[in-house]
């Protein structure tokens, strides 16, 4: 194990020990009938429930809180982290296995403070680092919606985390470093639309949970929001979201952003991998006004200083890459790399082709697949997987060729990287 990692573990352990001594004891759950200010009757307001359903889609709650083939919101999906696996719990109103005994105050403490019903600290794979920005009213609507669901009896598994992460008290230290509770505060210098977009992106949308780089303890730096990062365990690269010079979405118009979020496709590229899930389950259901607000906010992200160009020592056979491209790719993406409008995405200037790691291009060549089915694109075209046809060296060659053709100037990739990502689990 690397020495710095041992050092970090020691720091965590010391902080955890201190926390153990000073952190207050678990609290009693608030009794639903007496201490709550939210009456059961007000939670049955159909308009509130409908708004909560929309907000739950915006937050993509079902993505984590539903197992493969399982009942929506009944939990069971195991979320892989570098520290171990955390199963997402059942959030239907079953009294024994779900949120049936929860009051709104319990729910608010979970969403806003990252605390469970008995005061236990929640693991931040539940993105309360973002959800803390959600307003009290929106949280109430989501709670009303969840409580309106048919209860499903399905017990949640316990997390299986490695020591010391298995000690919930170790989260005291983590939270001191990375978690600042607080509802989103509008910026009076900005328009209402911009503020709505910022609220959705930073809060319920929890975009930064993937679109930023996590450190060795899984924390996110407030200095690097939405600047892109490799998603731990899933091994896809979630790009920088700035449209300004040096940004991952450089040159994307408001229209491009809205198109991608609404239909899964845009003139600049298509959604694939985890973002295809996000579009299908969440963003395609958002109102045009909210999508415009998100695009307006993203348009305002600052230009990024050009990263010190990494000198690539990887060499590849350009002629062989050109031949592979002509034989396998050009029929759809075009000899000029411009793709076919509305059908096949361009590769020239494509953020997913040029992202720093090359992971997205490598895995897309290996896996192929369909763009997400959305109301705006109900019968998407697809890309063949090449994992069966091309060996590691061939994939590396054609990916390197694409990353260094037309206006693309991204580093070449190695066959060994293809070998690594060939075996990455897909879920």
């Amino acid at each position, binding site marked *: 194990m690397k020495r710095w990692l041992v050092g970090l573990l020691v720091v965590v352990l010391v902080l955890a020990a201190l926390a153990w001594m000073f952190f207050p004891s678990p609290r009693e759950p608030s009794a639903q009938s007496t201490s709550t200010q939210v009456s059961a009757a007000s939670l049955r307001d159909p308009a509130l429930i409908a708004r909560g359903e929309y907000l739950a889609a915006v937050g993509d709650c079902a993505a984590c809180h539903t197992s493969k083939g399982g009942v929506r919101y009944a939990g069971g999906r195991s979320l892989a982290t570098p520290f171990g696996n955390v199963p997402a719990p059942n959030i239907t109103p079953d009294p024994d296995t779900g949120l049936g005994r929860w009051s709104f105050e319990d729910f608010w403490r979970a969403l806003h403070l990252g605390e469970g019903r008995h005061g236990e600290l929640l693991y931040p794979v539940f993105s309360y680092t973002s959800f803390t920005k959600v307003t009290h009213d929106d949280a109430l609507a989501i709670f009303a919606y969840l409580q309106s669901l048919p209860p499903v009896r399905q017990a949640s598994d316990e997390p299986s985390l490695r020591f010391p992460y298995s000690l919930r008290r170790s989260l005291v230290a983590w939270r001191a470093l990375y978690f600042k509770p607080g509802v989103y505060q509008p910026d009076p210098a900005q328009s209402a639309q911009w503020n709505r977009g910022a609220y959705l992106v930073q809060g319920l949308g929890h975009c930064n949970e993937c679109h930023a780089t996590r450190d060795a303890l899984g924390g996110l730096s407030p200095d690097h929001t939405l600047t892109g990062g490799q998603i731990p365990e899933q091994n896809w690269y979630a790009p920088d979201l700035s449209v300004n010079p040096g940004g991952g979405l450089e040159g994307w118009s408001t229209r491009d952003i809205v198109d991608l979020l609404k239909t899964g496709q845009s003139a600049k590229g298509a959604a694939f991998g985890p973002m295809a899930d996000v579009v299908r389950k969440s963003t395609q259901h958002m109102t045009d006004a909210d999508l415009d607000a998100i695009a307006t906010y993203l348009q305002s992200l600052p230009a990024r200083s050009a990263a010190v160009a990494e000198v690539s020592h990887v060499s590849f056979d350009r002629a062989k890459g050109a031949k592979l491209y002509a034989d396998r790719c050009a029929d759809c993406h*075009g000899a000029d790399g411009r793709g076919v409008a509305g059908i096949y995405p361009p590769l020239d200037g494509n953020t997913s082709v040029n992202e720093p790691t090359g992971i997205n291009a490598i895995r897309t060549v290996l*896996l192929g697949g369909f763009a997400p*089915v959305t109301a705006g694109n109900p019968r998407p075209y697809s890309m063949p*997987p090449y994992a069966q046809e091309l060996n590691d060296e061939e994939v590396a060659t054609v990916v390197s060729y694409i990353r260094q053709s037309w206006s693309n100037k991204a580093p070449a990739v190695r066959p060994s990287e293809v070998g690594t990502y060939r075996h990455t689990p897909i879920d």
Partner: protein
Amino acid sequence: MPAAATQPVVPDTIQQRVKACTTCHGVHGEGSPGSGVFPRLAGKPAAYLAQQLAYFQDGLRKYAPMEYTVRQLSPAYMEEIAAYFSAQEAPYHPSPVPSVSAAVMERGKQLVERGDSTRGIPSCVSCHGERLTGVEPAIPGLAGLSYDYVSAQIGSWRTHTRAAKSPDCMAIVANRLRDSDITAVAAWLGSLPPPTDMHAQPADPGKRVLPRWCVASAGAMP
């Protein structure tokens, strides 16, 4: 040169849309007779194909490339894709079969045609049709499947990487077969000459969709 001149012309057809499928299963769903790894889809009942796509989405069938490919599809689109492959008529091509003894072949023939009542194993033809080309609406043909594919699929029922919604008849059968029986069945099926009529048989209105032995045993399954 204007961009339009270099832009590829893309046919607006389902065949063009399903390139992700046809690269392995063949443009007409003929499978990969050479390797036997990718099964034939052509002519299988549409409801069966759509159901299997849903099973890959729901995690009942586990095979990472298929799970990734079907992940983003809607039920309506999966039905359209299933209908495309179901309607294809592609010639059968024999796949390689390992050399096994005459006794093994005889055992395979017995299991396929008559089953083994001493072990509670029904014959293949009793469900998959006399010609083994499947039965509408949702029982797949076995004719034309390779030795490798058949043995891998029966094995996958035993290792829980393939399943059907209950009652899962094939899980019951797979768990009653000996390892040597799997080899025998796969070898016999893989070496059968292709039938002249490749279509699935129509459902027999006098026959229940799932056999009594399956519905009755399913309740006792673990």
